[in-house]
């Protein structure tokens, strides 16, 4: 297959050769570390030709008239690069650009760069500044996902969950790729934190919707995370001591490339030991740890290889009674080998081998009765992506992704197997897309993706289309449509992600599919500011979720495990950003609706069977405002404030009650509620302000250091998570289960 693709592309090549045009290509890197920069803007100022670097930091401008040009390159946080180059006929100039970091981020430098080269923000796409992740006020530990939750269109289930609910999609509708490798459970501490160590990351990008044909497999969105390659100039590191966890990261060069290693571990043991001396029911062991590593091998000018790994684990041992103990051990491991090869200035390729494993081993020993689960996912795949530039108007991309997915789930009760399932499926996908710029004002990206799953023998086609019209230098209008399929579903609980289980579509359980329609505008209202608007509508069809009414799944046919439903989501997002200067930040507002509907669910009490009424899931919020401001108080001091106001989440108001008191098999009273429509009421509005102060200094002259002082929930708002009911009281007492209280934290980071 690859050979055929290359042959086709090779046949197209002569068209441009005869034209005797010139070209420029190369990588864009950070001069201080030679770390590649993704989505950096590159332009020839004398023409209207420009491009952005791809996910490997590579750019190529082809079919240029011979002559002298000024090539410019910009990237937020870096000084503008300019260089005069002269191109002769048929010349292919390899120009690797190194950008100088903006040590003092003056207003003037950044604004100048923005005016000349407009950032190429695609519809539905949001880059997350990795510096923002560490500078935001943090709940104990800097967290990638909690930073993403501040963006418009992204919601959090609660203060205790780092799960991403993107444009009405549940967390399993977001594909999470770490160095192009699928991560199945991206959480520590049962969902409180995401697994990604902020010190190891160089790029985080969220495709909130309308994502390109390159990606697939999820109904809602894609989150790509790239680990750092490692500093190619010098060995350096950073160490952070926090109240909950500490982390260390070190990176450096070697003769043919670079390497990076980072580790993070929770440091709760002293706290647990102190608690154990005064109270019962404290875990005897409770920790998480993770490792990230990457080795890069620059084989030739046109060949780069890398090997990246991630390993994370959470482990808890909790003897909660004299004769009862709960143990949980879960985590992820990923390994990806990447080969980037530049065939010529028109053809760029990337090949990846990936392996991703997820394991989840909960054990409960209760009164001499062991209850155990062994849940594993093994996902091994190969990917190939080619980018081809036949002329200045087209950028072709084509790729394949194929692999095997094994999901094993074995339950044992009282030392006997109670449920056993093993699915071994093959999956594959093929995509082709073309970015066409017919005029300077128009950009049309069309694509088609096909995907296949051997379980159930499902094959699906997914057309994608996006249009962009540059109305003025400061306004770009965008629209997109896409069809998306999802072959997996996640069995989880919003309050606790430690038992996550993934299941696939199969015979009798069709894959989910949905359409997304987006329209938006990216504007620059003033120098140094950005204002983006997007309206979206998306559907979710044939969603399959574990039937919540099943108490025991033993002996059931596979389709009987699920309830099948539909949903839709629509809304408007506004994002106003100040990108440069001493005061930076953004305000995001989302107005959104999310609806779901399942057969035999949320019907009237008199008629439990039927197609079901649609209802908003708990995470649906009508209005959601996020404000993030960072201010440099002085050369040493910096403060960051984040504030969130959101409509209260949906919940079900209980209306009536009765009790079944006469069951022959138990003493218990079965206290029972009657309700109306599910989730038709709203919790009180949610709002919270967090603030952090950081102070730069030195660590005994050995390196830079930073203290961070943070207060979460500054004014101690008692936000409500949900209501609990106490049946020991009559009338039944409804109590509020609160979210995070006021929480001061401190951390100390040393760079060496």
């Amino acid at each position, binding site marked *: 297959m690859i050979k055929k693709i290359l042959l086709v592309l090779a046949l197209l090549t002569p068209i441009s050769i005869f034209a005797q045009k010139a070209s420029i290509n190369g990588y864009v890197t950070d001069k201080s570390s030679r770390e590649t920069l993704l989505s950096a803007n590159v332009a020839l100022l004398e023409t209207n030709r420009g491009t952005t670097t791809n996910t490997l930091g590579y750019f190529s401008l082809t079919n240029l008239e011979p002559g002298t040009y000024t090539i410019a390159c910009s990237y937020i946080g870096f000084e503008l690069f300019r260089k005069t180059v002269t191109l002769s006929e048929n010349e292919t100039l390899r120009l690797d650009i190194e950008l100088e970091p903006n040590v003092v981020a003056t207003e003037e430098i950044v604004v100048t760069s923005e005016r000349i080269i407009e950032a190429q923000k695609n519809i539905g796409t949001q880059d997350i500044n990795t510096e923002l992740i560490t500078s935001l006020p943090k709940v104990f530990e800097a967290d990638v996902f909690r930073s993403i939750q501040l963006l418009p269109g992204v919601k959090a289930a609660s203060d205790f969950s780092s799960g991403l609910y993107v444009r009405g999609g549940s967390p399993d509708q977001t594909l999470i790729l770490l160095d192009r490798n699928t991560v199945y459970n991206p959480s520590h501490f049962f969902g409180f934190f995401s697994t990604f160590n902020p010190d190891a990351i160089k790029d985080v990008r969220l495709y909130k919707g309308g994502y390109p044909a390159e990606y697939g497999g999820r109904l809602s969105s894609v989150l790509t995370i790239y680990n750092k390659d490692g500093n190619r100039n010098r060995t350096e590191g950073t160490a952070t001591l926090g109240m909950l966890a500490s982390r260390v990261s070190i990176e450096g060069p070697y003769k043919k490339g670079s390497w990076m290693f980072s580790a993070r571990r929770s440091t709760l043991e002293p706290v647990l030991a102190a608690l154990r001396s005064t109270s019962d029911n404290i875990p005897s062991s409770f920790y998480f740890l993770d490792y990230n590593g990457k080795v890069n091998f620059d084989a030739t000018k046109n060949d780069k290889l890398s090997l990246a790994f991630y390993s994370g684990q959470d482990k808890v041992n909790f003897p909660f009674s004299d004769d009862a103990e709960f143990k949980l051990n879960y985590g992820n491991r990923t390994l990806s080998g990447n080969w980037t090869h530049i065939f010529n200035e028109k053809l760029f390729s990337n090949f990846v081998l990936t392996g991703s494993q997820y394991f989840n081993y909960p054990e409960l020993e209760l009164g001499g009765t062991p209850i155990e689960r062994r849940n594993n996912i093994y996902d091994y795949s190969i990917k190939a992506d080619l980018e081809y530039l036949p002329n200045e108007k087209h950028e072709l991309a084509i790729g394949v992704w194929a692999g095997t997915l094994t999901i094993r789930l074995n339950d044992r009760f009282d030392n006997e197997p109670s449920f056993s399932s093993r699915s071994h499926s093959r999956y594959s996908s093929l995509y082709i897309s073309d970015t066409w710029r017919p005029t300077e004002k128009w950009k049309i990206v069309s694509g088609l993706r096909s995907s296949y799953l051997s379980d159930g023998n499902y094959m699906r086609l997914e057309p994608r289309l996006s249009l962009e019209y540059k109305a003025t230098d400061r306004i770009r209008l965008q629209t997109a449509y896409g069809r998306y399929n999802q072959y997996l579903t996640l069995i989880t609980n919003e309050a606790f992600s430690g038992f996550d289980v993934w299941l696939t579509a199969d015979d009798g359980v069709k894959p989910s599919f949905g359409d997304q329609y987006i329209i938006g505008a990216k504007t620059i209202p003033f120098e140094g500011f950005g204002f983006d608007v997007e309206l979206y509508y998306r559907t979710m069809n044939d969603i399959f979720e574990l039937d919540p009414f099943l108490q025991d799944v*033993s002996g*059931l046919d596979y389709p009987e495990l699920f309830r099948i439903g539909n949903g839709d989501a629509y809304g408007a997002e506004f994002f106003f950003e100040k990108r440069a200067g001493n005061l930076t930040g953004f305000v995001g507002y989302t107005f959104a609706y999310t609806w779901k509907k399942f057969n035999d669910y949320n019907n009237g009490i008199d008629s439990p069977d039927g197609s079901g009424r649609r209802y908003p899931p708990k995470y649906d919020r009508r209005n959601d405002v996020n404000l993030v401001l960072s201010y440099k108080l002085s050369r040493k001091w910096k403060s960051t404030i984040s504030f969130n106001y959101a409509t209260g989440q949906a919940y079900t108001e209980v*209306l009536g*009650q*009765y009790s*079944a008191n006469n069951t*022959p098999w138990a*003493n218990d009273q079965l206290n029972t509620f009657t309700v109306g429509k599910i989730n038709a009421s709203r919790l009180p509005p949610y709002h919270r302000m967090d603030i952090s102060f950081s102070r730069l200094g030195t660590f005994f002259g050995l390196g830079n250091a930073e203290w961070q002082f943070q207060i979460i929930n500054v004014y101690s708002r008692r936000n409500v998570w949900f209501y609990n009911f106490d049946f020991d009281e009559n009338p039944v007492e409804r109590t509020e289960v609160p979210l995070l209280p006021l929480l001061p934290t401190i951390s100390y980071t040393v760079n060496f």
Partner: protein
Amino acid sequence: MRSLLITLTLFSIIFISCDLYPQDDYKEYYVVESYLIAQDPLAPIYLSTTAPATSAYSFEDYAVSGANVRVHLLSDDGDSNIVQTFAYQLDSAGVYSSAFQHTVLPSRTYQLQITDLPNDPTASIIGYTTVPDTFSNVSEVPDTVIYQSENQIEIDITPSLNTQRQSYFIFTTIALNPSKENFTPLYSDFFDDQEDEVGDFVKTSSGIVNEANFETKPNGIVTLKYPWLAVAFYGDNQIVANIIDDNIYDFLRSQSVQLGGSTLSPGEIPNVLYRLDGGIGVFGSLAADTIQTYIERPSSIDFNQ
């Protein structure tokens, strides 16, 4: 740009001002509770109404008396004709008992019919239950077993043949010598002197357990290994295996979801699945078999010390 903003603002205001999903008001429902047990006399029928969630609740306060309550035995030829009718009479507020002596027949369908409801004479409540087939233990249960020893209690039960599906079990342990001193270690630790009474633990039951959890022999005999978890007291214990009908199955599996523990988000509360027309609650049936054994305190472990 300005016009775009104005349009979007108007669009938002229109949406905000419309409540697309209004909350319902409280509505009162008649509540039925009755469990027919195969080979037992007809069980009483409890009739009441729901109470507002904010009010104090007791069955007596919301009991419904004065209704016309009848249970019909239907033919087993598939035509559902009424073979026999059993009129019920009011025993106490909201509690109705059959005026006739009748032993509930396994594998047969009974119809509940309640009419002349006091607040709405035109209303009626109709329900059906098909009684699970009886079964019995065919194994030799030892007189005494040592708690948490390797020799677990094993029960071999004959198949219950009347369903098109696997059987759904509920297991109940009834302690015959309940006392604080007789608690097994787990329950001793769970017991709270301030809030609990020993009697609360006399009858403990499992949730719904599917038949597929157990080994089925070629002759259809199902072998159950009884978990130590279910034993709350040392001493004499009765172990009851119950096979439940669809109505109890739906009622229990959905009632347990109301207070959490499923994959639903906290605060998302569905109604219980009811199989009654004109009312809510449960009119169900079950078949049961009981064994008895003595659970001996082990000499090697004693978590009470």
